[in-house]
């Protein structure tokens, strides 16, 4: 009690934070689990129905379609969103002109700051078949017929992957550059003494020394990919929905649009399960724990 009084002011400062997390993090987690076993209606009684919601989700072909979409789009974003910034970081690192290096970083970073509505609005327009810049360039240079990028089910997923990579590559690139900067310069000196060319230095010093940074970035990106929502919400349209609607979109439509709250809660626990599995796989593959 005496201890408590001594630190009372500190505990009091902490109180709003604790209350906030209880109401907006912990309670919803348990509430969600409870709802997933209920026939949940906004009004009236909410009987427990066991695993019915989960069974319903497993037998819904649209859920599995969303699952496949999520997998394809996330793996695409994961791969391209990893390789592109890595190449850019290596390339930027070779530039000796400090001013150019800074300017390039600054410009590449801008899209990461903007919302998906802005990025989406821009690209939907740039990719439009009649007046979009991309189609104009394609038709002027290689005389291609206009491509309906956003209405074509083949292109829909590529647009998702491409724009997501474009938006975040400047940001990921900075993380890689931070890793490169922290490499011990004497390693490069030694390599140069041995007569290593620039390419050999990249291959034998930079890349192996960057392995840990790469693992961390890959793991963090993996945790994020099942969560893509804003982007899909903005880029989807009726003609491509079946190719791009991801699991979060499924949950949103079931829960908020159709008000089948129990089913949606069950679906979201599947998403959590997939996230866990994916994280475990990636941890095993990258042997993250050994870092």
């Amino acid at each position, binding site marked *: 009690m005496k201890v408590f009084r001594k630190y009372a002011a*500190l505990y009091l400062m902490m109180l709003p*934070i604790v209350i906030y997390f209880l109401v*907006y993090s912990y309670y919803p987690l348990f*509430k969600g689990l409870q709802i997933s076993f209920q026939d949940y209606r906004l009004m009236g009684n909410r009987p427990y129905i066991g695993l019915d919601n989960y069974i319903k989700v497993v037998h819904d072909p649209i859920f599995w379609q969303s699952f496949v979409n999520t997998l394809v789009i996330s793996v695409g974003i994961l791969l391209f969103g990893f390789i592109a910034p890595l190449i850019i970081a290596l390339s930027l690192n070779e530039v000796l002109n400090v001013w150019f290096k800074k300017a390039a970083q600054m410009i590449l970073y801008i899209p990461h700051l903007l*919302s998906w509505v802005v990025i989406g*609005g*821009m690209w939907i327009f740039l990719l439009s078949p009649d007046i979009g*810049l991309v189609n104009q360039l394609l038709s002027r240079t290689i005389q291609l017929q206009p491509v309906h990028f956003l209405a074509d089910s083949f292109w829909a997923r590529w647009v998702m992957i491409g724009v997501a990579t474009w938006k975040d590559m400047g940001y990921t690139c900075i993380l890689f550059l931070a890793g490169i900067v922290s490499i011990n310069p004497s390693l490069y000196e030694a390599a140069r003494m041995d007569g290593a060319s620039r390419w050999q230095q990249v291959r034998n010093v930079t890349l192996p020394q960057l392995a840990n940074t790469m693992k961390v970035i890959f793991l963090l990106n993996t945790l994020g990919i099942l969560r893509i929502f804003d982007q899909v919400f903005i880029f989807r349209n009726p003609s491509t929905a079946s190719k791009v609607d991801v699991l979060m979109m499924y949950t949103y439509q079931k829960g908020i649009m159709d008000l089948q709250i129990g089913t949606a809660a069950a679906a*979201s626990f599947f998403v959590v399960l997939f996230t866990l599995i994916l994280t475990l796989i990636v941890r095993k593959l990258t042997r993250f724990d050994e870092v």
Partner: protein
Amino acid sequence: MNRIRYDRQGALNKLFDTLNLLFLLFLMLTMIIPFLNVIALAFSSGVSSMQPDIILFPKQFSAEGFAIVWNSLDIWKPFLNSVIVTGIGTVLHVLLSSFAGYVLMHPFLPGKKLMVTFILITMMIPQEAIMIPLYVVNKDLHLLNTLTVLVLSGLVSGFSILLMRNFFLGVPYEMAESAKMDGAGELRIFSTMYMRLATPGLATVTLFEFVGRWNMFTAPVLFINDSTKYTLQVALKSMIIDANSTSGTYLLTTNVKMAGIIIAIIPLIAIYPFVQKFFMKGIMLGASKE
């Protein structure tokens, strides 16, 4: 012999440098040209913005797009909502994160370990798992369709708390102790010493939160369907994107849509120089701590 090899190596190096620069310039152009295209379209007249030959420069220069967005489409209402939510939300977020960061900085505080674990767990609770129950919670609290719910979404985050704590740990604890000897209370030490000495930390968290809140989209989509409570992002979404697919509604010319995009970008571009400075530090700090 050696000399020839050296020369060839030098020439190869030069070639590589040139190609490398060209590659980076090309990438930068893919970032810049879309924005220039948007600006050119926004400043063109309504009719010419619908024709396919504007790339970098406006045609029939006019600002009518902006006038229409602001006056006829009343974008200032959602703009105001965004300003309110971003302003209040950011201030409260920074204040609460600093509170928690300050408390968790104390080396001998009983129960500190428990509090840290409590916060770390919230960082691991996946948002996708609680999207639906959050809707239910907010409905039970009668907060749906209010601006309050948008302020409350993400009001505190473990990430910001840990970031602030790391900055506070940089302030020597002996200073706090000696101030306490002189009879200063915790709140006083917090406000007059720690908040002032941790300015870079405060700036980092403020900017992160400002950008995040200005761009916030999922929360308003989930919790708001009364159009008078729309934020700028949601209003823009229905103006730019839904207008493409739904026919029959008021047809907007391209310059109007692009003007809307520019209005949403302006506050971010205005703070970009500061963001640039602090974000880099924040990113490093955050990345190495996660």
